C-alpha cells in the first residue's frame, strides 16, 4: 500500500468537510422558524409521495403526463417509481419527489379548541347555574345517510373513547332522531322541541352529499327561525374540513376523533358562556 493511501474519488473532500466540525450542532432549523417543508430523510428535503390514476393508456405518453402533473403540483424532479396499466384505458402511478412549496406555520389556520375542556360536572354546573334549565340538544343523520355510529358516539350514554356521551350529562336533554332524517322533519322537530342546538352527522361524502345536505339544512333553519333565533348548528363527520364552518353556514364543524366532552364543552361555551 502506498504511504499516502489510495482513496476512492470524492471522499477526501467529504471527510475534510466533516472533520473540522468535531461535534457539530444539530441541523439548523429551516430558514425561518415558522416555515417548514416536508421531511423525507433530511431537514427541508421536501420529499412527498403521491399516487393517482390518469385516463391514458399505459406507456411513455402516460408516464410523461404523470411527470407533468407532479411538476404542476410543485414537485421538483419527480421520480416516477411505478406505472401500471389498469384495464386498457387507465394508468396508475406512484411518484416521489421534493415539493418546492413551503408551509408558513404563522398563516396556518388552526382550529384549536378556543374554549376550555370541561368535565361533565363543570358542564352541568355551568348550565344549571347560568341557564337555569336543561339545554335541549337534537341530533340526527340527515339526508339518506344512515351512518349513526358517529352521532351515537357523541350522544348515547355509551359514548366514545372511554368518555360517556351527552345523554349522561344531567343538564342536557338529548333527542337522537337517528338515521335518514329529512331536512324538513328535522327543522320541524327543532321547533317542536325548542332545541338549543342541532347536532348533525354526515358520513357519506361521495358527490359532496355532506356539503349539499348541510348547506340545505343551514338555509332551512335560517328560513324557519331567522338568523338570531335559530338553534346553534353543529355538524360532524370524519371527512369534514374543520375549517369550513363559515362556508357551510354552520356554527362549528367537528371532525375525526371528536369526543363527547369536546362537544359538551363547546355547547357551554357557545350557549351558556364561560364558567365562573
Amino acid at each position: 500500500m502506498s504511504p499516502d493511501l489510495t482513496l476512492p474519488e470524492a471522499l477526501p473532500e467529504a471527510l475534510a468537510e466533516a472533520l473540522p466540525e468535531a461535534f457539530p450542532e444539530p441541523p439548523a432549523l429551516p430558514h425561518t422558524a415558522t416555515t417548514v417543508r416536508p421531511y423525507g430523510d433530511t431537514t427541508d428535503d421536501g420529499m412527498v409521495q403521491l399516487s393517482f390514476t390518469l385516463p391514458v393508456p399505459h406507456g411513455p405518453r402516460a408516464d410523461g403526463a404523470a411527470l407533468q402533473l407532479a411538476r404542476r403540483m410543485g414537485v421538483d424532479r419527480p421520480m416516477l417509481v411505478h406505472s401500471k396499466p389498469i384495464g386498457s384505458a387507465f394508468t396508475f402511478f406512484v411518484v416521489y419527489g421534493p415539493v418546492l412549496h413551503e408551509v408558513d406555520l404563522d398563516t396556518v389556520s388552526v382550529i384549536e379548541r378556543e374554549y376550555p375542556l370541561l368535565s361533565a360536572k363543570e358542564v352541568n354546573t355551568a348550565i344549571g347555574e347560568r341557564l337555569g334549565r336543561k339545554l335541549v340538544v337534537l341530533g340526527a343523520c340527515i339526508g339518506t345517510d344512515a351512518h349513526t355510529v358517529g352521532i351515537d358516539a357523541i350522544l348515547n350514554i355509551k359514548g366514545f373513547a372511554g368518555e360517556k356521551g351527552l345523554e349522561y350529562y344531567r343538564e342536557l336533554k338529548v333527542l337522537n332522531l337517528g338515521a335518514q332524517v329529512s331536512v324538513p322533519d328535522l327543522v320541524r322537530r327543532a321547533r317542536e322541541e325548542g332545541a338549543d342546538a342541532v347536532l348533525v352527522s354526515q358520513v357519506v361524502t361521495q358527490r359532496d352529499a355532506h356539503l349539499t345536505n348541510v348547506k340545505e339544512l343551514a338555509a332551512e333553519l335560517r328560513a324557519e327561525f331567522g338568523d338570531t333565533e335559530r338553534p346553534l348548528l353543529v355538524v360532524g363527520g370524519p371527512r369534514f374540513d374543520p375549517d369550513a364552518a363559515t362556508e357551510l353556514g354552520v356554527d362549528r364543524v367537528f371532525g375525526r376523533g371528536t369526543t363527547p366532552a369536546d362537544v359538551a364543552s363547546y355547547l357551554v361555551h357557545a350557549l351558556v358562556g364561560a364558567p365562573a
Partner: protein
Amino acid sequence: MTTAAVPVAGSRTGKLGLDPAQVRRARELAAEVGRPVVDLARSHTTVAVERATLRLAGLNGADAEGIPWANRLVDAVRDQVGLEHGVCLPVWEALRGGGYRDLTDLAAHAATRTVPFRIPSGAASVRSEASARAAVARGIARIDERRREREELVARWGNPSGPWIYLIVATGDIHEDIRQARAAAQGGADVIAVIRSTGQSLLDYVPDGATREGYAGTYATQENFRLMRAALDETSAELGRYVRLTNYASGLCMPEIAALAGLERLDMMLNDSMYGILFRDINPVRTFVDQRFSRQLHARAGIVINTGEDNYLTTADAVDAAHTVTASQLLNEYFAKEAGLADGQLGLGHAFEIDPAVPDSFRLELAHALLARELFPDAPLKWMPPTRHMTGDVFHGYLLNGFFNLAGALTEQSILLVGMMTEAVVTPFLSDRDLALRNIRYVLDAAGGLAEDFHPAPDGLIARRAAHVLGEAVDLLGDIRGRGLLDAIAAGTFGGMRRPPAGGRGADGVVARADGYRNPAIDLLETT
C-alpha cells in the same frame, strides 16, 4: 346446477374437532326459532310481493313521473278492494272484462282510478287465476331460461379456479360503473357487485331506466341490471371466464328486485333475513314476508344469496358478538332452505372485524372463520374484509386486507370480498380496486396450499375459541326460542339494534292474507 362450482369445504373439515351433538342442537334450535316466523310469512303478503308478481307477469316500465306501473296498479287495487286476496284475482278479472290492451294499459287506466276492481268468485275466480297463472308462468319460464343460459355460459367459459374474488363498484353512475367493472374483471375479479345508492332501500318502488345519479352507489333498476350484465358478458367472452354480477335484494322492494335479478340473469344477490330490520329500520314482518318470496325466486333462478351477518360487527364488537353471527347464520340457513335454496346457494356472510389492537386478533379471526367453514361445509361462505377498523392509514389498511385475504385462504372461504385500502375514506377508486386485486392475487398464489400446513393446536387458542363461540350461539338460540325471534330483535340481540315488531318503515305495506288469497307465482315456485 351452476352454483355447485362455488368452492366449498366439502369433506375437508374437522380441524376444530367440533362436538357433533352440539352442532345438531344448534340446527334444531334454529329451526324451532324460525318456524313461527315462516308461518307469519305464509299468512301475510306485502305490496312488494304483489308488485313482484305483476312484474313476473310482464308489467314493466313507469309513468312519466317515474313511478312504476307495478306500483300504480297495486296501489289502485289496494285502494279499492284491498290486497288480502292478492293482486292477481282482481287484476286478471279486470283484464278479462275490460278491453285493456295489456297489463300496462290496465295500470295506466288504474292510475287514473277509472278501473273498477273486484274480487271474483266461483268460476270467474278460477278463470282469472288461470289467466294470471299463465302470465306469471311466462315470467318464471324466462327466469328458467336465463338460468340455463348461465349454465351454458359457465360451461363454455368456465369457473374461477380458486375462491371467487368479489369486488364492489359504487360510483352512482351506471356508465362509470361499467368502465370500472370491466377494468376490475380484466384485473382478475370473478364477481362484480354494484352497490346501491344510499337512499334506495327505503324507496317503496324500483326506479326505472338507466341511472347516473346515485350517492355512493347506483340505483338497482332493471335497465341497469341489463346494461351491466351485457357489459360483463362481453368482458367474460373477452377473458374466457364467466364474470358474475351481484346486486341487493334487500330493502322495501326485496321481492321485486329478486324477480328482476332472475329476469336479467344476475348471479348472486345480497339477501338477508334481518338486515333491513336492523340496519334500515324496516318493519320486521314486512321483511320476513318479503324475504321468503325473494328467496323462493332466488332458488328458482339459481342465484347464490349472500347474507349480511358481517354488518353486525360494524356496530357490535367482533369478539363479544361473534356468536350472534353464528346464530344468525343458522337462522339464515333455516329460512333459506325452507324457501327452497340448496346448500350450494347459501353464501352465508361473516367478516374480519376484530380490532387489530386485540392481542392474537388474527388467530381469533381464524377461529371464527374456521367455525363458519366447519358448521356449513357445503355452503359457499362469503368472507367480508375489515371495514370498521380501517383508518386513513391506507398503508396499514392494505396490510390488514392482506391478512384478511390470508385468513380467507387458510380457512378456505368460498367468496372473498376484496377489501379496499381507502375503506375509511371514500367509496373505492379505480386504482384501489386494482391494488386490492393485486393484493389478493399475491396472497392466494404465495400461500398456495398453506391451508394444508395449518392445524390449530388441539385445545389451543383457536379450537377453544371456536367451541366457545358455538356454545354461546347455542345458548343464544335457546334463549330466543323461549321469547321468540321478533322479541329478541326488539331487545337488540343482533348488531345492538332494537327494532320492535310493529315499528319500522313499510309496515303499512303488510297485509294479512284472506282465506281466498291467491298468488300463482308462489304456487308455481312451490310446486314446479
